[in-house]
């Protein structure tokens, strides 16, 4: 089985890109499954089900979605193997832009969209910097110049990534993108023992443990302070 991890800011078009890509992959008679990670709510699993794709969803609730992802990824891989998948895709939303769900030696894809503004590539941390392929969406509604500037900023932040434009509505580019996802030579039976590409966002302070009161005396553990001094 192949494993591919998708990640990207909310509403950047991850699900649309994956659905269009799966259409192309299914034509090669490959069996694809998806596990969708989200925070509070998602009905994207319905969209996958409609497309005839085996799907599971996991909601992290009050936990950091990345921590939830890494604590469950091994079980997810086994789920995929039991279903005899050729390709297992995990999709996780990057909510704080500091997200970093990628695993070493496992294909990592970041989906970001042209509408998010040209400074966005700079704002996204390891999720963009350590991805193997960056998919840029919503190119059909912004000007050519904005597309060019956006793509060149992505390349500045991650010079090693392949950068592709995929249209999640029409599917333009999805076939081409799909050819990069599956590799016959690749067999993932387990991810136990593998490592994350970068450490996940962390906190461990009193608020992580349920503190609700505000004030210095209630702040314990890993606390960082904003610089408010005169410039």
């Amino acid at each position, binding site marked *: 089985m192949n494993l591919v991890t998708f990640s990207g800011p909310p509403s950047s078009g991850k699900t649309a890109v994956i659905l269009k890509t799966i259409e192309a992959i299914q034509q090669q008679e490959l069996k694809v499954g998806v596990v969708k990670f989200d925070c509070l709510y998602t009905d994207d699993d319905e969209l996958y089900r409609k497309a005839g794709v085996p799907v599971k969803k996991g909601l992290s609730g009050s936990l950091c979605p990345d921590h939830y992802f890494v604590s469950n990824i091994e079980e997810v891989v086994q789920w995929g193997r039991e279903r005899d998948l050729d390709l297992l895709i995990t999709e996780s939303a990057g909510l704080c832009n500091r997200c970093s769900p990628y695993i070493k030696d496992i294909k990592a894809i970041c989906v970001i969209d042209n509408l998010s503004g040209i400074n966005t590539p700079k704002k996204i941390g390891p999720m963009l910097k350590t991805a193997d392929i960056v998919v840029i969406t919503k190119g059909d509604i*912004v000007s050519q110049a904005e597309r060019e500037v956006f793509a060149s900023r992505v390349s500045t932040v991650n010079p090693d990534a392949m950068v592709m434009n995929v249209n999640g509505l029409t599917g333009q580019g999805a076939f081409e993108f799909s050819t990069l996802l599956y590799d016959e030579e690749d067999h993932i039976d387990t991810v136990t023992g593998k490592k994350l590409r970068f450490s996940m966002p962390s906190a461990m302070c009193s608020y992580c443990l349920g503190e609700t009161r505000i004030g210095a005396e209630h702040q314990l553990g890993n606390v960082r302070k904003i610089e408010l001094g005169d410039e």
Partner: protein
Amino acid sequence: MIKKEELKNSTVNEIIEEYPYTESFFDGQKLAVDDGDKSLREIFADLTVEEMEDVVFDVDQFADSLASHIRNMQEFLGENDSVVGTLSILAGKDKDGELENYDKLDIKSGEIISIVGPTGSGKSRLLADIEWTAQGDTPTERKILINDAVPDKKWRFTGGKKLVAQLSQNMNFVMDLSVIEFLNLHAESRLIDNQEEVVERIFTEANQLAGEQFSRDAQITSLSGGQSRALMIADTAILSSSPIILIDEIENAGINREKALELLVGEEKVVLMATHDPILALMGDKRIIINNGGIKDIIKTTAEEKELMKELKVLDKVMTDLREDLRYGKNLSRISDELAAVKTA
């Protein structure tokens, strides 16, 4: 070849002096540089945990990434091979697996090719084949040649440089910038030498295309449809790095379409134009007829069609004038009895 070890031992100032474009790289990577005279190795040794977190990479990964960036930029700047003299499409198959009805279609730079066919007929697929420089590895099995050779793979994956630029009716400006700021931003990303001159030229050309003039300081998001398209076309013609341009209809309002096409072909671009408008279609040298996923026919615009175009332009002018009159509060009157006769015939 850029040596990673050398980069690690160089100071930030030395690196920027040798490769000026790395300034934006340092900025984009959010590396906290308090003293440009320190080497990368020294800077990384001094980073706090928080600063380390921001920059994501350790010194080795950072140097790798920097080396890749320099390689990308050298490729981007040093290239003259991005000139497309001839774009060739070798026949593939339609949706039913039938061979397409031609062997090889050559399109030369400066030529305009119209693409016609009903919705869903395969226009997007044709464009995608070109953009991907297909080599029999797409559903249509078409092959794309550039200057009669198999194109470099770089066209598929590099971020800063794509083979095809696109202009469509649905496109909008989304940045909060003035016209001049916007053009400067685009020019900066292209790293051109004579930025001021080029920006000025785009501004002038765009205003010549637009029905209504706009100023340097106008916000791009507040331009009218015609003004936006004029600016997009002038900018794409003069500043886009892509040698092939695909146009998806140009609405006949607020812009001089003929001049727009002249500007594009004048910049030695290959122009492909998907359209249902007979005036636009006939501006092409040839038109490709697409149906059921395949190219059914390639028709050369005939002398008679060029004559027809003159008549169509008269009709077009009549409508434009009426629109203008309406706009400025004039009463509209009948055009002529002949036209009425044509209409009712």
